[in-house]
């Protein structure tokens, strides 16, 4: 079982990202879950979304999770919410920020000694897609760090997931995914 927790603000696309990732993983024959805690569900409110992936049928519907990966797609949530909640010893953090990994850890000492990677998904999405929708680039970064799938395989399948969007938007998302894949450190 692989478990992922997303930290996002409502409207940044964490649910769409979690569902898109689930579609790609499901296409490889694994069982999947993608869900979220909505709370008051106001645009801009801090929220969390979740993925579970397994070779076996997933029976577990508890919301409690000790994530293998924590994906943070809004920079301020590192300080405003408890992104290390219910972590495991080897939980991996991939965090959107304009800071370097060292600067980020210095600014949030809770991350000291943990497996932390950084990438600026906000900037990447602004420069490629044209607005701050940092969900798809985060998936590119996750592919690099987790080695879940080859980037070619992943973008090919993400292309199918996004196929109902206008061609221009799909192309921009593909570039965003590859940029984050290359830029995550």
């Amino acid at each position, binding site marked *: 079982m692989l478990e992922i927790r997303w930290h996002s603000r409502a409207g940044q696309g964490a649910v769409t990202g979690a569902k898109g990732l689930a579609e790609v993983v499901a296409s490889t024959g694994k069982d999947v879950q*993608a869900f979220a805690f*909505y709370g008051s569900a106001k645009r801009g409110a801090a929220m969390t979304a979740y993925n579970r992936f397994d070779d076996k049928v997933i029976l577990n519907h508890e919301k409690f999770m000790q994530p293998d990966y924590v994906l943070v797609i809004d920079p301020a949530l590192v300080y405003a919410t408890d992104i290390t909640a219910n972590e495991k010893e080897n939980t991996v953090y991939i965090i959107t920020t304009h800071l370097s990994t060292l600067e980020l850890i210095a600014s949030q000492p809770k991350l000291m000694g943990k497996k932390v990677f950084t990438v600026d998904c906000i900037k990447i999405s602004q420069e490629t897609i044209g607005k701050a929708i940092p969900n798809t680039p985060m998936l590119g970064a996750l592919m690099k760090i987790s080695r879940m799938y080859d980037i070619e395989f992943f973008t090919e399948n993400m292309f199918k997931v996004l196929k109902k969007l206008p061609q221009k938007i799909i192309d921009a998302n593909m570039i965003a995914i590859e940029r984050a894949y290359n830029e995550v450190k």
Partner: protein
Amino acid sequence: MADIFELRDIEVWDGNMAASHALRQAQVDVVAAYPITPSTPIVENYASFMANGYIDGEFVMAESEHGAMSCCIGASAAGGRVATATSSQGFALMLETLYSASGMRLPIVLNVVNRAIGAPLNVNGDHSDMYMGRDSGWIQIDCYNPQDVYDMNLVAFRVCEDHGIRLPAMVHQDGFMTSHTAQRVKTLSDDVAYDFIGEFKPMNDMLDLDHPVTHGVQTEEDWHFEHKARQHHALMSAVLPKIQEAFDGLKALTGRQYNLVESYTMDDAEIAIVCMGTSVETAQEVSNELRAQGIKAGVVGIRVFRPFPLEQIADALKGCKAIATLDRSSPNGTVGALYNELAGALFNTSTHAVLTNYIYGLGGRDLTKSSIHTIYRDLQANAQAGSPTTPLQQFIGLRGPKLSFF
């Protein structure tokens, strides 16, 4: 003519999307709706299918849930295939008309995305609305995941529209935990799904002007009792065999097997949890963990809540030493409804298990695997002692001091 919607063999859908596609494939004549969280996307998706040419029927935006179900009743009496969706307070507002639908023997399919009923206001999943409907004369089928929602919608149409039944059916799923959780759903093509349900054949329809009928008449003490008895008789005698037949048909078509009572590792089980919704599967996972330790644990999931499969449940629990019933609705003044049902099912049988009750998960409070482990530990102690080692009713997952009664 509506366009064919090309589906992949396996889609990643949440429970709401699964319900929307099942309604689309059923070629419903009239959907009248007043959306409410968390069931909103069912009719929202449906409206978008309609706008994109995938639906031939009518979509009526009503002024309230009372109005929505009233439209459904009118359309069903007129002779159409009819469906809608609701949750929580919206369900509560429909309640009066639910009795009209069942009393008039109108085969309407209602997707109920289970949600808490306020006050305090809460949009999350519990079974308060499902429990509120249990005396309303509707068939109630319960789902544990999005695949169930898709399949049970197809089953619901096929069962409730049968001329030997003609009773409305609710298809229940857990708010957010199923309705907003995307999982794999194996689909049927539009043709195959429609053929499984079958063509809608009206009976006593008001628009059959050659055979005029009256619907919704008044009957006082002369006939009211006989009408209600006939309705109960149909629920008690015709529905379970018809659901079983639909389950058999679905299995032949898809390989997926559903049962009136979903027994999980119950053959030699000494301790068992009885529950509904997503909790059934989480309990199954915990029972697997206990089995790996050599503990004879099992789970009984309620698939059909009304009509209640009393004999089948008693049979599934035969030989158990300790049983916990889990209720996700505040009983407000007594034991949980499922406790009552189970006590009734087991009382005159040779099963003399210790029976206890847990209230859990109100307003979407998480049912953790750790809580389920605690329940099974209580059950082991009860089985060993041969009598309750805990209070009869306990609240689990509640913050603050432990709360228990009886």
